[in-house]
């Protein structure tokens, strides 16, 4: 019996059952349940994308902690309201509406959610970029945290540290940690991308990490061909190219 995949065209040709190619006038309960599942999954994905398109992201007109979220949407070519503070719409005036007084926040069905990585995981999940099993999600989370928890805070301190001493210490820490994890990440690449053939949040955060952080730390991926390939593939991805070359995309 043929198995149904999300990519199969969901229409009945003539009188033929999509699944077993038998006469569909007969009761095909098992076939129907398979089609239902695919239809349900497809409907759910459609619904997710619609919910995601209705979301509003609020942040400054910079990359900062919102860029990862914007890239997720861009990669999947899903539009959303990308609200950026400006002279006419100031953060100070909006702050009281955010739950924690911080940004980015994502407004979903009128409710505000904070924490950039929580938001990124939610958007990734809804757009199908968190792996398709609990164990796969664990692998994605592990890679994402290695970058966002262990290195990103130091990168922020390099730019925003209050003293030169703090900035220098942050640079040393960021460089040391990056040198340590790059070989480990290289081993985790299971195919074209970290999980194999499908792009996930892990690949996208790595792409931003390679673009933004490695040059600042004076490091490169010469010794890590698989990681280099991930970054190159995403750089050449049509949707990402379109986003990065869009004049309204923040450059820093």
């Amino acid at each position, binding site marked *: 019996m043929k198995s149904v995949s999300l990519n199969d065209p969901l229409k009945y040709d003539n009188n033929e059952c999509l699944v077993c190619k038998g006469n569909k006038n007969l009761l095909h309960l098992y076939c129907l349940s398979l089609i239902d599942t695919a239809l349900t999954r497809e409907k759910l994905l459609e619904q997710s994308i619609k919910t995601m398109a209705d979301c509003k992201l609020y942040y400054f007109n910079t990359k900062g902690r919102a860029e990862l979220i914007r890239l997720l949407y861009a990669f999947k070519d899903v539009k959303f309201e990308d609200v950026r503070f400006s002279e006419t719409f100031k953060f100070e005036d909006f702050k009281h509406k955010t739950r924690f007084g911080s940004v980015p926040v994502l407004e979903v069905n009128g409710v505000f959610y904070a924490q950039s*990585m*929580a938001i990124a995981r*939610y958007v990734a999940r809804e757009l199908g970029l968190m792996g398709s099993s*609990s164990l796969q999600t*664990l*692998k994605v*989370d592990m890679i994402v*945290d290695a970058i966002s928890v262990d290195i990103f805070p130091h990168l922020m301190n390099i730019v925003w540290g209050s003293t030169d001493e703090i900035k220098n210490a942050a640079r040393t820490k960021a460089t040391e940690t990056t040198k340590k*994890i790059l070989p480990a990440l290289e081993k*985790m690449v299971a195919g074209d991308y970290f999980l194999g053939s499908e792009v996930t949040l892990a690949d996208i955060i790595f792409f931003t990490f390679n673009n933004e952080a490695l040059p600042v730390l004076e490091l490169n991926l010469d010794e890590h061909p698989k990681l280099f390939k991930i970054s190159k593939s995403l750089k050449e991805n049509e949707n990402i190219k379109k986003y990065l070359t869009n004049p309204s995309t923040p450059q820093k």
Partner: protein
Amino acid sequence: MADCKLYYFNAKARAELTRYAYAFKGVSYEDIRFDDTNLKFEEFKSKTPFGSAPVLEVDGVMFAQSMAIARYVAREVGLNGANSLENLKIDMILDALYSDLFPLIINVFQGQTDEIKAAAKTKAVESIQKTFGNLETLVSGDYFLGSDASLADLAVFNLVNDVLPLLGLNMDEYTKISKIVASLRENENIKSHLENRPKTDA
């Protein structure tokens, strides 16, 4: 599925949230702790993904990153949200506690001089009060998500029961959160875990 193995030092620190998740749901696992005789971390390190701990071994494969592990275990034992939006809420709370506050608290203990430690403590206490004030508004019933406990509640329990007392802080003024903490403290599985776990400073 075979039992998972959690490897960490003999400490609460970054592994206790995962231990609470297993304990609360009564799911067994191997709680392995490094020591100087049977299993030295220095010798085990090369088997871990990033040379760090905790790691969780699932069917022979090692996974790192304490929060990734905690989220995985929560999914497996049924302490995650009922839907994606509830998981966003849980993640928001976890990040506020472990990404924002935890590092500030660590700074208090790792400060090089008394002056640095004092400044770090002032900063930490300020952030803790601001964060807990925000988290208090997120409690939507007996627990953060409503009527059932989730990983987010165990997380706040971990902070209030194990970590904040190290700074001499109690969170009694936050009534809803205190109620969560009290409920969990009365839970049979948590009580048993608290009684039986090794006594460690941090």
